[in-house]
């Protein structure tokens, strides 16, 4: 039980911090809306129908905007040695990691739903017959993404290249998430039956499980002094 309480303590601390500063969620949210705005002008509607490429745009906005916020996971705590305090506490490192990715997941999932909402509005999308499945695909994708993103954000924030390093480390690893996520979302938006996306959702789930598992094990080697 202590393990869960430790996770909860980290999660609550991170969410409270975000609630008070609103830095990352504001940056990610504004990015999502503005990206939707720019995408609107980048599509010539006499050539392509926005709904045909909407799934790709949704996921790319989520990846780019998400990295903006996830990359700053350790930013506030790096000041005044706050993170050193967490590391010297008796909390196991994997509990710290799981608490952190849960907090990041909450933030990113809010942004994901915002992206879908905004794009639905901007491009007149029809969410199809299974909006719940779209939400599930985004949840599984976001989970895998925050796990890898948080792990490598801890890496990149202790290098002198900082956040510029993060995309180079994370993008190659995100390929499965983008491929399965975009195709699941695209098919659901096109009104295809659930049977056609079940495999994709399972692969997204496998990616998320792998990312969370590997991240929990690797995190201690990243933060070790």
């Amino acid at each position, binding site marked *: 039980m202590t393990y869960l309480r430790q996770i909860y303590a980290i999660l609550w601390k991170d969410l409270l911090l975000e609630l008070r500063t609103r830095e990352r969620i504001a940056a990610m949210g504004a990015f999502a809306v503005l990206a939707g705005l720019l995408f609107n002008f980048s599509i010539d509607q006499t050539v392509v129908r926005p709904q045909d490429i909407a799934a790709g745009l949704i996921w790319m906005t989520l990846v780019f905007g998400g990295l903006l916020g996830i990359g700053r996971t350790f930013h506030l705590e790096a000041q005044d040695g706050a993170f050193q305090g967490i590391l010297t506490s008796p909390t196991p490192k994997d509990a710290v990691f799981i608490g952190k990715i849960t907090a990041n997941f909450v933030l990113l999932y809010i942004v994901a739903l915002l992206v879908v909402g905004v794009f639905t509005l901007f491009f007149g999308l029809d969410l199809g017959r299974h909006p719940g499945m779209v939400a599930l695909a985004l949840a599984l994708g976001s989970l895998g993404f925050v796990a890898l993103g948080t792990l490598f954000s801890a890496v990149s924030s*202790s290098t002198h290249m900082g956040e510029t390093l993060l995309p*180079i*480390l994370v993008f*190659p690893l995100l*390929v*499965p998430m983008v491929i399965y996520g975009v195709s699941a979302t695209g098919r659901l938006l096109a009104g295809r039956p659930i049977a056609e996306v079940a495999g994709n959702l399972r692969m997204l789930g496998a990616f998320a499980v792998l990312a969370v598992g590997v991240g929990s094990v690797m995190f201690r*080697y*990243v933060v*070790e002094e």
Partner: protein
Amino acid sequence: MPSKKLRLGGSVLAILGVLGILALHWMVFFWTPTEASMGIIQRIFYIHVPSAWVAFFAFGIVALCSAMYLWLGDERLDQAASSAAEGGMVFTTIVLLTGPLWGRIAWGTFWTWEPRLTLTLLLWFIYLGYFLVRSSTENPQRGKRFAAVVGIVGALDIPLIHLSVVWFRSLHPTPVVMKPEGPTLAPAMLATLGVGLLSFTLLFLGVFLQRYTLAVATHLAAVRERRSQT
């Protein structure tokens, strides 16, 4: 001193590898028959495929040594991992250079999202990330640990990346993508490929051992210098 034996072994393997590659070139240019449908360009295959094999083999060494480095913390394991990564990146670059040359003639395009091509490109970027994190920390020990994490996570993600790019490809079939499959190869071609695989592996192992002993020696020299200063 074990490193002296290793260096000698490295030199022998590298020389054998170079001799093998010279023999390979003779076979490629004068001995092996020309492939019927693709013509002369198919001969790049004997360079391309062995390089690809070495590129992925090297990454296996990187991942294995990285995992053991994090576990045991022995400096030599990190030196082995980074030496393998350097060799691996060179051979990955060779694959990415020879692939498009071949593809331009055989497929009519320099680049196509063929799964193995895509995977190799991603492998190149994972190697790039490996070297970037290694060299961009103030504390070198941290850089080594970060690099090991990149190596391990990359190796675990590669099967999933492979599955996904194959699956993605199957959505968009292109006409006439020639794939040189093993069993359909003529015996002379198979022999040439075998010589290629063997000599590229020998060359890689030779260079790897040389690079590894150099890394160990550099480390020892640095330690001694620090000691003599204090």
